[in-house]
Every structure is written in structure tokens, then in C-alpha cells.
């Protein structure tokens, strides 16, 4: 079983990474744009 201490470290690392990356997200960015990119449809948020 994973040690609780290690788990906390892993979670904190993941949260830190998300916080760092998410700072640059446009307000109009949303999950559905992922499929739009693959399908070659309109994919850039207007405020990016």
C-alpha cells in the first residue's frame, strides 16, 4: 500500500503543476476543444 506521506507529496506535486500551467489558460478554454482540435474544427478560444 502507498505510504500516506508519499501520497501527500505526489498530490501536492500534481496540484503544483496544474497551478503553474493553468495560469496561462484563456477563459474560453474548455475540455471539449480537445476533440475539436483532433477533428480539425474551430479550436482556438477567442480570448487566447
Amino acid at each position, binding site marked *: 500500500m502507498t505510504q500516506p506521506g508519499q501520497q501527500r507529496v*505526489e498530490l501536492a506535486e500534481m496540484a503544483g*503543476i*496544474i497551478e503553474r500551467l493553468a495560469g*496561462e489558460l484563456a477563459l474560453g*478554454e474548455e*475540455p471539449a476543444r*480537445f*476533440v*475539436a482540435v*483532433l477533428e480539425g474544427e474551430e479550436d482556438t478560444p477567442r480570448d487566447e
Partner: protein
Amino acid sequence: MSDESLAGLAEAIRGRRLSPVEAVERCLGRIRKWDSRLHAFIRLDEEGALETARSLEADAAAGRWRGPLHGVPLGFKDLCHLHGLPTTCGTRMPEYFVSVQECTAARRLLDAGAIGLGKLNMTELAMGAFGDNGHHGDVDNPWRAGHASGGSSSGSAAGVAAGFFAGAVGSDTGGSIRLPAGCCGVVGLKPTYGRVSRAGAMPLSWSMDHLGPLAWTARDAALMLQVMAGRDPADATASRRAVPDYAAVIEGGIAGVRIGVAMNYFFEGVEEQTAAGVRQAARQLERLGARVSEIGVPDPRDIIDVAMLITRAEASALHARVFRERPQDLQPVARARLQVGFSISAYDYLQALRLRAKLTRVFVREVFAEVDVLLTPVIPGPPPVLAALKAAPVDEFNARGGRFSRLTRPFNGLGLPALSVPCGFTDLGLPLGFQVVGRPFDEALLLRLGHSYQEAAGWHLRRPPLE
């Protein structure tokens, strides 16, 4: 074309040089001889396969052909639900996954005339990169006993390599088709997200799961993908795009194709023989007319972190019940991986999903403006000795799994098609492999490149010694 390949078998059966019963008997003979070592099967359906073969033989005699795979023996990872056979998903529970809907991809192959030999071994709940399974036996590497077969579609890859069946269905959430393909020296394709329906297959992460074929050759994988791909009302994420005729374009050659060898990240810390094998493959592709250049790509570590977080959160949500009600039935490795996901916040999960969209847009825009495909190693080093890995504490074992899948996982996050192709052997006789990654839905180019390479290099003509 070897009659051991899927294409060769299909042609021999169509030409009445081989009967479906003979094809199945040939596979069963190998399985009886070698599966006590390899553990590729969780459930061998000998009787069902022979019954289907006899029916297909009668059809062939009467000139009735069910489809392009008439009489070809295949295997299905044991997370594909098929009526009448239990679906363990690599757990100790015979009916872990029950579905009203059969696995669309497997059903399409069977409807095209394929014969299902049974359900294949896999890492428990498809979580793990090495092919170990404490309930059903570790899947051994066909090329060298005691080495990892790769996971999680371990039985699929080892069984293809051993000639137990001509092709197999696997699933890939972080590399689970391409890693075992790389370890076992066979071809494995993770298609574009949405290219192949996931209906009727156990989900691990609905955002990252892909089903795809494993086979000896790119041509064989193309034949399977042709049948498996396409829209499916039972899977809302299955693309409505038309399916190209992959077989028709596979012989087109690769003159002028722009190949980018991804220099940042993908060769960092990669074992010497592995890196040399990929570079040698690049030179071979250049001799075939491709334009090979070294390029930099957006740092894949960001999409790996994002993909990992999404997978963990979704896997825990999906498999919470077994974790909470029957944790003793799960192996410690699977329990440890599920445990983390319960503590991921909704905020982090949602930001990760938004980031995935942005990172994918940037990657596609920047990389594919410059090249048509990306070339990388598929595994960072030769398949390791499994016993040594298993001796490590659970957290270390899982961390090693994460490092082992670090070259494949980015393309689950990005949803891009990626093909693993064997490209030689180490000094110890273990397979080497490369990975080619294409634009969304450009599986045809990947398969054409893989086919051109295999025809020129000929590595696929070697078979494991199985001693």
C-alpha cells in the same frame, strides 16, 4: 508475405490452401506447447474456436465468405466483453466487467470472419507497464525468459509474438498497446482518440482509453483497423469520420514524407542500444526516400502530468466500488494506484482537462507544420528482468512503471495516433522498437511508413526461439 502473418493466413484461407480448422489447430498446437510458460491466456476457448472454425470451413466450401478475416484466429484482451465468456479485466473476479453491449471492436472483427481463441492476460485493471499479474501469472517475454512482456496488453503482444493467434485487440491508456508491442517485438497501434469505439470494453479512463490492434506487421494491423474503426452509436466519443481504405494506401511508399526525430526529451536517458536502433531506423527510412530531420517539440512533461492526473481521477471514480468493497481482492500495486485518485480535487481535474485542449492545439500546430510524422523510441530501454522489478516496494514499482511509459503517455494525453514498430534486437536478443506519431486520424501514413520500413528491414521475419 508469410502465411504466419494475418494477411498471409487470410489469403491462404481465401485461396483454399488452408482451412479455418487447420489454422485454429496450428495455433492451438503452439498454445498447448508454450502457454504454460508465457501465460498469454486467461481463458482459452478451444471448443468455441473449433466450432466456429468448422462453421467457417463449411461456409468457405459453399463459397460464402463472411468478410476479409474469414477463418483468421485472433485473441482479445480480457477487458473486451463478449457474450458467453467471463471478463476478468486481469482481476481474480471472473465477472468483474459485465456489459449488455459486446465490445464493438471485437464484435466487428468476429463479424468479419475472425475466430476468437479466447481472452488474453493483462495487468490487473489495465494498470501497469510490465505485464505482471499475480492472479493469472506474469506474462513472460517470448524472446527471453524472465524479462517483462510489457503491459498492460501483455497477453495480446506475447501471444502474437509466439504465433498463438494472428492478431489481437489491446487497449492503451498510457502506452498499454505500444509498450508490450515494443517488448515483444510486434506491431502495435494506438489510433487517434475516437477512431475506434471503446463500447463494451472496461474503461480505465474515458478521456485516455484507446482500443487498437497488435499484429506481426503494419499490413496486418491495417487489416484489423479497417474492420475495427468507425462510428458507433454505442460510444459517443467514436468519431463520425469516414474510415479510409488503409490496405489500398499501404504500398504507396514514403518518398518525400517529412519525418522529425524528436530530439528533446525523447532521447534523454534512453539506453544506448535502444537509441541507436531508432537512429538506424531513421537512416533506413531516409534511404526509402523520407526527409528526416531532427526537431524540438513542446515539452511533453506538461501533457504527461496532465494525462496522469486525469487518468488517476477517472480510474478511481470508475473502480471505486471494488476498491472500497473488496480491496483485498486487488493486488497492492493496483490498490496503491487507485488510492491516489480519490484525493484529486475537482479543481485540479477540471483544469487538467482544459489544459489538455490547449496543449494538444499547441503541439499539433507547432509539430505538424514542420513534419508529417514524429519518430521516437517506444520504450526507454530493453524489457527489464521482471523478478528484479517485482522485488521493489510498491511505490517504487509504480514509479518505475511511470518512467517506463514516459515515451508513450504523451500521445494518450494528446490523443494522437502512434504506431510501435520493431527495429532490431539487443545483444541479449531482446526486441528494439520505434514509435511514429502522426496528425489526428492519419493512421494511414503511420501504417504505410511501418509497412515500408518492415519490407526493407525484414525484422518481422524473425520469430522468438521460445525455449
